[in-house]
């Protein structure tokens, strides 16, 4: 026997012995891996995305894949639990190579204390891009310059970005008391596509005689003006929780603070812009009306941006168990909100004498109490009452001067006080044949502060001070067999309210009682849909079928119908109808493969009638969606998945002519236009997601992701599609969206676990 063979024999013996003795240790290690949360991994890779920013603008609205064609893909995870102390340490990074990155660090001794820090970036890229000569976008003083012709300017994109830093934690003071606190700071920057427009009012820039709208005098203009965004939001919340066997109560404070670094927007506007016809776009600019204040000056007046505001809320909330079968919930809250940003500091002038800021004060009180009881094993009862009062204590002042209106000028600012009272009662009983039946009634009352005589409410015909809605509902649920369960529910609601007050006339008129308004108001009036009488009926049902151990199917259907009854039986929203059918299925092909599929069709529609400008519209959104998915593990080291989804929204507008129209010429003109109608708006998206994850060894994986998206958005909002001309602003700015977008994303990553 050679020395090497001797060594070999000894090695074999030793290995056998070591393996035998270490077997339990290996078992422990395997068990630890299966039962301990400890994770350390880093994922590094690259992604490629096809096309340019215009051809992927819908796909890249929020995912950070707008600017660059290639991106770094970097994520990491760290989780460790100290088994002796129960202390968790976590760190997590996501999308670190993109401008949607997230970072989080946390540490907690479970059940004793916890601390975490999170950083998150959310970016929104407007899918639409402007072609413009405007400069200074993002500042409070942009300069508008007219393009010689539409489409000859530079591309201007709009992006907002939020950077959010959050801190949160808790500490158990003793077995009964816990303290929780959180703080969130958010900075938001960027620009938002916005606008400004004005049509000269007689009292502002008179447009009669030589100043009337013509080929050489322009009395109105619409402009695209980007809103500059540079603001900060802070939210802080602290809670002290206390519990006994029967009582849980939280005493808390929630403060929220908004600070806008921009007070107002003052664009610089040229003295000549386009006229209203398409021919004006490429011709010479038309001078703006110069009488009175002059349209150019009016368009250069500062526009108010959102003011700083703050709110402090103190609350007491929790639950109490009278008995194990009778439990209650409660909340009491008081909120003091203010808005007192200095007008001059915002760059806004002309406030009424004595007012340097609004002095806005809104005090809100909330009280809620709910109770549930199970007096018998088969019977459950539920009751809930909620009261909320918003008391707007903002001082009134004469902010508004607008001559030429019926009401005497000036008028005061508006306030938004209201009181809401809501409640519900419900009983649920287990009937024979294993049917659970539930009946309930809901009630909601809203009282609103009606504007006094010295306030003018624009653009509506009437208001009412109180609305009440009562809903009756019932549903049945049944386990039809061990594998099938079903439910059906029905609800009927009716909303009514107090008298309507006509605010157009000098003295408030009460419709239907005293001082009733004239016939024309009755015919052409429009009544806010949130205030009109309404009946609402809903029906919904579902069936769950666990056909086999491998196959489960769910079918759901629901429909609702609303009828609005304004006092004149004509104006505004008249009806609404929604319905949806959906079918979902899941099938386990084997232990290693699972397939899913779903499909749904639905519609949301409403009918609006406008006696005032003589049209009716049946507006609908018909939507279709389906998807299939496959998830599998073909080998012990390979995971794969695929999903294919399709969504379609078809918007139709169903225009018609007001049947009560009284002006023959208008009716004739509108009839001809209604025959042409409005083009449909169609949105379609087909999306294919594929992934494969291959485990190279115990510590490392490679992963491949492929996403392919085809999107179509045909719409007329901005024109420029389907042969229709662009909607063109007064300075020839146009807004565009590529209606047919095809995008492919490929991402490859190496994942190392250590």
């Amino acid at each position, binding site marked *: 026997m050679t020395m090497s063979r001797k060594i070999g024999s000894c090695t074999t013996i030793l290995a056998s012995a070591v393996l035998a003795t270490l077997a339990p240790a290996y078992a422990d290690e395997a068990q630890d891996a299966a039962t301990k949360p400890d994770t350390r991994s880093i994922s590094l890779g690259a992604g490629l995305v096809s096309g340019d920013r215009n051809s992927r603008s819908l796909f890249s*609205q929020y995912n950070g894949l707008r600017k660059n064609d290639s991106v770094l893909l970097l994520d990491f995870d760290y989780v460790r639990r100290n088994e002796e102390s129960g202390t968790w340490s976590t760190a997590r990074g996501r999308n670190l190579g993109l401008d949607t990155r997230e970072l989080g660090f946390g540490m907690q001794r479970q059940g004793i204390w916890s601390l975490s820090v999170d950083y998150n970036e959310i970016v929104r890229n407007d899918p639409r891009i402007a072609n413009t000569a405007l400069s200074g976008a993002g500042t409070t003083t942009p300069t508008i310059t007219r393009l010689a012709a539409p489409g000859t300017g530079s591309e201007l994109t709009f992006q907002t970005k939020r950077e959010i830093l959050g801190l949160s934690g808790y500490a158990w003071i003793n077995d009964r008391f816990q303290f929780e606190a959180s703080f969130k700071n958010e900075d938001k920057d960027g620009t938002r596509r916005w606008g400004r427009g004005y049509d000269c009012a007689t009292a502002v820039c008179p447009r009669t005689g030589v100043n009337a709208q013509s080929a050489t005098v322009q009395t109105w203009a619409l402009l695209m003006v980007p809103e500059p965004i540079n603001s900060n939001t802070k939210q802080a919340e602290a809670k002290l929780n206390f519990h006994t066997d029967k009582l849980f109560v939280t005493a808390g404070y929630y403060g929220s603070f908004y600070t806008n670094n921009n007070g107002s927007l003052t664009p610089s506007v040229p003295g000549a812009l386009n006229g209203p016809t398409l021919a004006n776009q490429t011709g010479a600019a038309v001078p703006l009306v110069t009488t009175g204040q002059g349209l150019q000056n009016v368009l250069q007046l500062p526009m108010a941006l959102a003011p700083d505001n703050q709110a402090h809320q103190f609350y007491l909330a929790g639950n109490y168990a009278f008995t194990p079968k009778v439990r209650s919930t409660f*909340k009491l809250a008081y909120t003091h909100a203010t808005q007192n940003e200095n007008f001059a500091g915002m760059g806004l002038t002309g406030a009424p004498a004595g007012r340097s800021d609004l002095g806005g004060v809104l005090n809100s009180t909330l009280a809620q109490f709910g109770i549930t009881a199970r007096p018998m094993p088969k019977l459950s009862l539920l009751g809930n009452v909620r009261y909320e009062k918003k008391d707007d204590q903002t001082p009134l002042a004469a902010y508004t001067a607008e001559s030429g209106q019926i009401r005497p000028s000036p008028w005061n600012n508006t306030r938004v006080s209201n009181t809401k009272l809501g409640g519900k009662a419900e009983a649920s009983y287990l009937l024979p044949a294993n049917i659970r039946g539930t009946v309930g009634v809901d009630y909601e009352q809203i009282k609103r502060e009606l504007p006094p005589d010295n306030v003018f409410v624009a653009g509506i015909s009437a208001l009412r001070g109180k609305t009440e809605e009562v809903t009756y509902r019932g549903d049945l649920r049944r386990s039809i067999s061990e594998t099938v369960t079903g439910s059906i529910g029905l609800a009927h609601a009716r909303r009514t309210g107090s008298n309507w007050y006509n605010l157009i006339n000098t003295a408030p008129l009460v419709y239907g009682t005293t001082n009733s308004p004239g016939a024309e108001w009755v015919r052409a009036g429009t009544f806010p849909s949130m205030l009109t009488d309404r009946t609402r009926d809903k029906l919904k049902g579902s069936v769950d079928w666990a056909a086999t151990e491998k196959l489960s199917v769910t079918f759901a259907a629901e429909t609702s119908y609303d009828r609005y009854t304004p006092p004149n039986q004509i104006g505004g929203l008249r009806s609404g109808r929604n319905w949806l059918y959906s079918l979902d299925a899941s099938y386990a092909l084997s232990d290693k493969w699972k397939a899913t599929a779903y499909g749904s069709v639905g519609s949301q529609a409403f009918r609006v009638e406008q006696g005032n400008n003589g049209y009716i519209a049946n507006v609908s959104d018909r939507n279709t969606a389906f998807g299939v998915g496959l998830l599998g593990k073909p080998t012990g080291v390979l995971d794969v998945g695929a999903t294919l989804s399709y969504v379609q929204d078809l918007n139709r507008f169903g225009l018609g002519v007001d049947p009560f129209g009284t*002006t023959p010429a208008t009716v004739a003109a509108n009839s001809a236009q209604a025959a042409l109608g409005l083009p449909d708006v169609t949105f379609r998206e087909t999306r294919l997601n594929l992934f494969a994850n291959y485990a190279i060894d115990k510590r490392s994986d490679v992963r491949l992701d492929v996403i392919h998206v085809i999107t179509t958005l045909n719409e007329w909002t901005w024109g420029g599609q389907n042969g229709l001309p662009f909607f063109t602003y007064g300075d020839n700015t146009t807004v565009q969206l590529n209606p047919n977008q095809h995008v492919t994303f490929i991402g490859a990553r190496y994942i190392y676990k250590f």
Partner: protein
Amino acid sequence: MKHHYKEGLLTIAAGALLALAGAAFVSDALAQQTAARKDLVLNGDAKCTRCHDADDNPQILEIGKTKHGTRADGRTPTCTSCHGESENHINKPANAAERPKPDRTFTKKSSTPIAERNEACMSCHRNDSQRSHWEGSQHQSRDVACTSCHQIHTAHDAVREKLSQPQVCFTCHKEQRTQINRPSRHPIPEGKVVCSDCHNPHGSVGPKLVKRDSVNDTCYTCHMEKRGPFVHNHEPVSEDCMNCHQPHGTVAENLLKARPPFLCHQCHTPHGPNIVQVLGQQTPGQALSSTSTGKNVINISMARGCTNCHTQVHGSNNPSTTEPSPQFMLR
């Protein structure tokens, strides 16, 4: 050759002895383990894991990776805390044809009443500020089981992961599954905003289980610039953002329930006598001319619709008492 034969025998004997010793060690260890019924992942779990071990169902043991599996935290449960003592399951009665199920089970086909299943969770989690209003909430009163949404025996509970949470909610909320893919939406598919950013599925004081006390208070957590109060308020805005917006997604821009002017005309009297129309699809009599006013129907129907001029629909804090008056939400 003889010498080699002896060496071989010696090697085999030594190996056998060591293997026997190893086997004896393992056997002893197993015997001790069985005798002591060592807990595997939870305090006191040996009662169950003596059968339900890694060979039986490794998924069950993954509870060790979760907060429930933190044994140093004295509040954490054992198997029977949730599943009940289950004596008949552990010691099958002699006259039973099949082993009875545990006292409480949580599968879809479970015969355990949902209220009883949920009580297994709520007996601990009721004393939690996020779940204080579970009783009487829509999900509780509609018999939604905690385990309809949560997976307990896994380190990655899908409903608690931002990217997968919406899919869990869409199991019931089908309409929203379609809405979140529309062109105007929150970044839900990207996992930057998730259902639980706005809703508290465990109960709240607000409608639709919104996280804060009202729809508006919930929206203000991200859109605080809309809160005001303003010099000129727009009452439907102050009352309920959902009067105009559909937060889950729309085809119309800005999450509007319908595009202007159809949305605005649900409350407001419109300008002018003409029917809604678009450029390039007008009858000759309605085409824009050099004398068309600013309130022509194209300016109301296209681009931003009514908000082409009425830009301050959320309220204006402009105090100016000079004309044009800011009260019409123009500036």
